[in-house]
């Protein structure tokens, strides 16, 4: 379990995160949602240790990140998989090279063992016959799959995704969402997804944390989000006519 308590972060005079506390459970896909500029990316970067918060603690299954020494932090990071918004694949490496990279860096496996593992994860993300292609030769959806494969190749305990389906067509976006959820269940990992895509919320949001102006304005499940009276959440989630109708239908069905 990841427990976040009273997280504060400022850049100069801009107070970006204002005392966020929440938790993320094993085997569940948790979504952090909010408008652009609400602090989602800073929040996830604090969780990843890429940004140091001024105040607050992040507890990874009993290990408080700020209290770890650099070696312990490094070990913890090897248990983290991350899918970046722009995939962040290494341009100079092939798909196989990208996915094999963490294995090369942190394991003593033989070449054949590494190849077997890479083949396994690429097959798991439904990406075969792309081993020798470079990232520039892949579509956005394929790049995301490679990024997911690279994130899970080390069997991580924690998976973070920053807007994993941004820039993808709706069908591919749903495929990526479902893939992340399947992997979360299959490997029983803690998955935290940063998103402002309402389709993702409705599709895979087992826990939803809504951020507004750097504060946690609401949290609940995707079922709760239909029922909530929180104005900030409803004005954000049901900003489109389609979702307003979906909510109306849901509530009518319930009554």
């Amino acid at each position: 379990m990841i427990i976040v308590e009273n997280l504060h972060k400022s850049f100069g005079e801009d107070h970006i995160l204002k005392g966020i506390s929440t938790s993320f459970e094993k085997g569940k896909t948790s979504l952090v949602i909010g408008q652009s500029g609400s602090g989602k990316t800073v929040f996830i970067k604090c969780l990843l240790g890429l940004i140091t918060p001024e105040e607050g603690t992040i507890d990874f299954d009993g290990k408080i990140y700020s209290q770890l020494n650099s070696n312990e932090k490094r070990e913890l990071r090897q248990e983290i998989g991350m899918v970046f918004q722009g995939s962040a694949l290494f341009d100079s490496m092939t798909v196989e090279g990208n996915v094999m990279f963490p294995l090369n860096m942190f394991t003593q496996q033989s070449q054949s063992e590494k190849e077997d593992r890479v083949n396994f994860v690429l097959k798991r993300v439904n990406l075969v016959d792309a081993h020798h292609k470079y990232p520039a030769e892949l579509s956005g959806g394929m790049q995301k799959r490679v990024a997911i494969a690279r994130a899970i190749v080390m069997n991580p305990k924690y998976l973070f995704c920053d807007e994993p389906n941004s820039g993808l067509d709706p069908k591919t976006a749903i495929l990526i969402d479902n893939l992340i959820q399947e992997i979360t269940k299959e490997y029983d990992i803690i998955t935290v997804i940063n998103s402002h895509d309402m389709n993702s919320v409705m599709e895979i949001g087992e826990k939803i944390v809504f951020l507004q102006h750097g504060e946690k304005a609401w949290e609940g499940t995707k079922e709760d989000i239909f029922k909530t009276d929180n104005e900030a959440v409803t004005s954000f989630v049901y900003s489109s006519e389609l979702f307003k109708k979906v909510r109306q239908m849901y509530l009518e069905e319930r009554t």
Partner: protein
Amino acid sequence: MLFPPIQGELCYFYATTIIPLMTYLSAIGSYSIMVKEVFKKPTKWPIMKSLIFKEIDELIFNSLGIIVFISLFIGGVVTIQTALNLENPLIPVSLIGFATRQSVVLEFAPTFTSIIMAGKVGSYITSSIGTMRVTEQIDALEVMGVNSLNYLVFPKIIAMLLYPFAIAIAMYMGILGGWMAGVWGNFTSSADFIEGLQMDFDPYHVTYSFIKTLVFAFVIATVPSYHGYFMKGGALDVGKASTTSFVWTSVVIIILNFILTQLLLG
């Protein structure tokens, strides 16, 4: 707060002098911390070895063409200019070879070539690392637990240890260019030129030149890396960072050239 607000007549002085000074000092501090981090948490040797060979190819071998080209012509120009300025018949013609050797070995090969390399190699380093920063590839390395500075900058520093060999080639080509321009342009005979080359030769001058070159190599590997690694923004900012990196690398090389010359020859 780094820069507290100041009211009154000190404000102008503060804004025009203290803030830029603090910014430069802050940048020097960040650069020093970066250099320290480069040597921490080393990457596994088999991976590092392949990165070093890749950088040797990219930074040294791919630069040899331009080094040879520039040195050949610079040597030729030095010879022609020296010859054209020797109007007094009492001054021996062999001085043309002597002046070419001294100019090329002491200054043109190590310093002039390094300024060119600051543009060629430096902009490559800044843009490649800067692009990795913009596209979150550096964040990806950090999240995996890789020391990104060691992974990205250390191989460049090691590869640049071969830079003195490139400068040795530059010296040879510069003198060859001088000989070609002098002899084929009928400014001097081959024998006079070679006599000048051998006149009062002090091997320490070559040592001095190689010491300078090693220092410049470190600057060319690290200053552009600093500008690429700590850049912020998008694709346009990568271009701006490359330009800034070239300016600062050149400035640092010129200042260090002065200091090293004073220390080693003064």
